[in-house]
């Protein structure tokens, strides 16, 4: 009947709805790529360690005060121990989102999460 005709067939509509669903899923999940894909650890004398954040490991970094121990466990990185006076880097806890970092200024160690994904803040003042 002419009154029931539309420009799109049932199959067209099906494709359209699948596209809507797929777009929604991609939008919500960020395309299926995990956030914080890489941890970068740098130290004195050009030391650099790069590895996937979901790859559990312990990294020892030598600095002017001694050895800083960084743990990468369960998709997050943290300083486990440090020879610095106040151990502020240990107290900073874990980082897991891109752009966030744990820094030990006295022993010159920087632990950074690098990768795609939204960050909860653009900067932290401390």
């Amino acid at each position: 009947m002419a009154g029931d005709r539309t420009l799109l067939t049932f199959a067209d509509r099906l494709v359209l709805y699948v596209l809507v669903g797929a777009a929604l899923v991609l939008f919500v999940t960020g395309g299926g790529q995990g956030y914080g894909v890489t941890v970068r650890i740098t130290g004195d004398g050009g030391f650099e360690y790069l590895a996937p954040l979901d790859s559990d490991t312990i990294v020892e970094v030598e600095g002017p005060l001694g050895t800083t121990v960084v743990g990468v466990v369960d998709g997050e990185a943290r300083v486990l121990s440090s020879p610095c006076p106040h151990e502020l880097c240990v107290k900073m806890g874990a980082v897991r989102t891109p752009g966030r970092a744990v820094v030990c200024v006295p022993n010159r160690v920087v632990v950074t999460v690098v990768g795609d994904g939204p960050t909860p803040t653009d900067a932290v003042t401390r």
Partner: protein
Amino acid sequence: MSTSRKRLALEVAALLVVVALIVTFATRRRSDSDRHVDYRFLMGTVVSVTVLTPDAELGRAAIDAAFDEIARIEALTSRYLQDSEISRLNARADGFTGERVSREVAEVVSRSLAIAEASSGAFDITVAPLVDLWTFPEGDYALPDESYIRAALRTVNWRAVQIDVVENTLTALPGTELDLAGVAKGYAVDRAVAVLRRAGIATGVVDAGGDVGFVGTPPDANGWRVGVKHPRADGLMGVVLVDGGSVATSGDYQNYFPMDGVRYHHILDPSTGYPARGVMSVTVAAELAVDADALATAVFVLGPDEGMALIERTAGAEALMVAGEGDSLGNVVLSSGLAARFEAQ
């Protein structure tokens, strides 16, 4: 409207949704992969520079240029570098008149004296002799001898310094020693921000140990989201939203030692020679980081009432203060322009 027309309208709407979502998604993904960040140890802290640009080569060059600028400012202003301009001036124990200085040192001193005057000396760049008494050593902590503090206070006087920003000349009375640590980091951030702008960076952040300067428009339409560290716990006290400019924090947790239940920290009251009391942290937002840096110290020293009054009468400045003493957290005080732009966590 007939059933077929309604259905057609629905289908067109669905199509628009698909297009909108794909565009939104593609834009977000592109902006994420355009983020470039690097870190360096400068000015006694870690400095990070972040830029958003699809041109990785441009981003890398801009970041390096920003770091170079901060290193240059440090080389001029640090009194812990033997060859710096400030070290050269501080070596002149007999004072000096009309001594030519770099434009950069003249600008830092000029802003410092302006905030010293506005804060009635709560911020003071002549505190070097006091700072030297409080060395915050590792292990065997000791309070400075009272007589040493009294002696040091005799040379702490911001009015003993005069700057001519036309001729870039500095005058100081005998015995005056300058310490720009409370303001030079902010100035270096401002200079690095200017370098990024000149390099063509549309969006970026320079963070020198918590002194943060912003370039261009924020990724979030509501403003730059700046986390404020909790003064006594891991993580954040909250998030402030700023449109641009800069943010800096002074906190009693940054450098301190405990003794007999008292926290002796590095933010000294130039009128007493001892750490200022009654405040745990002050975060200031201002157009320039050099001002935010100095104001954060001044407000910390002045305390909740006088400090927030200073902020309210300073054009373009806003502040968040966490009052308290020891481990006893006090009120969170917000200036009038920041009250609606703070998200507690």
